[in-house]
């Protein structure tokens, strides 16, 4: 099997790897680059646990071929906190107990961050529909929605100053 050399930027850093032609981006991230924060819950794009951004767009990394990512910018959960400082969403998820087992949490955080970058003041319904592709089996979503809204409020406050 011939490997393909892929050059990417992951969380702002250059990352090259060799992958099999049929390998998914999720497997490359986890097994080639050691970035195991993205999780495989289904492998069919139905659970969202592998959510990453690809050139700024939210995608399921299980439905992207690693080879496609050549030249792309990838954002994963490992890049959400900057220099050890948690993102307001991360703070809010801990503060509002928006996780129980935590397996869906990386995907939900990546997805929620993508939402707030586009829509800093979403309604609850908009949050729920944006996150409909991120399954959580523990929380019933209630505290997740509250945490996203708390983080959104916090971020709006930071943007506009107090």
């Amino acid at each position, binding site marked *: 099997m011939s490997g393909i050399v892929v050059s990417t930027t992951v969380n702002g850093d250059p990352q090259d790897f060799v992958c099999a032609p049929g390998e998914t981006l999720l497997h490359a991230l986890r097994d080639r680059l050691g970035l195991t924060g993205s999780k495989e819950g289904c492998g069919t794009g139905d659970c969202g646990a592998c959510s990453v951004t690809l050139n700024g767009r939210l995608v399921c990394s299980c439905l992207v071929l690693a080879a496609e990512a050549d030249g792309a910018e990838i954002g994963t959960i490992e890049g959400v906190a900057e220099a050890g400082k948690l993102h307001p969403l991360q703070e809010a998820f801990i503060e509002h107990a928006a996780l129980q087992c935590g397996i869906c949490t990386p995907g939900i955080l990546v997805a929620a961050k993508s939402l707030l970058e586009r829509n800093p003041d979403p309604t609850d319904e908009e949050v729920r*529909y944006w996150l409909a*592709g991120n399954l959580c089996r523990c929380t019933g979503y209630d505290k997740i929605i509250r945490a996203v809204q708390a983080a959104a409020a916090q971020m709006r406050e930071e943007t506009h100053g107090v």
Partner: protein
Amino acid sequence: MQFLRAESVSDVARCLAESPNAYVLAGGTDLLVQMGTRRIAPEMVIDIKHLPGIGEITQTENGFRIGAAVPGAKLGEDGALTSEWPGVTEAAQLIGSTQIQGRATMAGNLCNASPAADCVPALIAAGAEVEIAGPDGTRMAAVADIPTGPGKTTLAEGEFVTAILLPKRQPASGDAYLRFIPRTEMDIAVASAGAWLQTDADGTVTAARVALGAVAPTAYLVDGAGDLLVGTTLDDDTLKKLEAHCAASASPIDDKRGTVAFRIEVAGVLARRAAKIAYERAREAK
């Protein structure tokens, strides 16, 4: 398996023609699922996203040209397209989650040829066409003529869809698409309906098309449905007739997603509701 990042349309056509087990990759949201679950084992996957113009939406004299690799999320961000064809863009944006929208394309949805493909009834109702490239050059076809049955299309060896073409919006026209799923998101349509219609200044329908999905081997234009609406102001009686007519046209199957009886009646309900929304949009558009 080989992976090819195609640089030209002719590259793609040649590879498709040479390898009978080659697949086109645009958004990959169907292809990778089929590969991952081992339903297919491609010899070659051809990434078409880097072909010139294939990821662009352009407004032409005749309407919109939507490149085959334009993902749903990008459709939704195009103000001109969403305001002229709200039904089509809503249909495309119902496909899967936000994450799927980051990748899934209308062309892929069409060529995957699922009877339940969300954008197809809307495109048929809109009178959309596709641009097809192949070894012998480019040709055009009506969207309705592409799928022939589950997983099957009229595309010849070496051919692939390069763009979807939507006509310019006519004055006082509107379109709409509705589907039924058990949840609010993340499901495959159990029944669906797309509607397009145009009215005169008084609100009398002058032209109309209604298409159904998930209730036959392919999405289809409902014969005679448009005629039922023409000349009316979409009064309740007309809508009831439309519902019954559409329901009668359906020939669905029983499966894990729905029963024959359910699909037939819900297809009628959705056709009625979609026509009503399209009518309201036509009236608002003036």
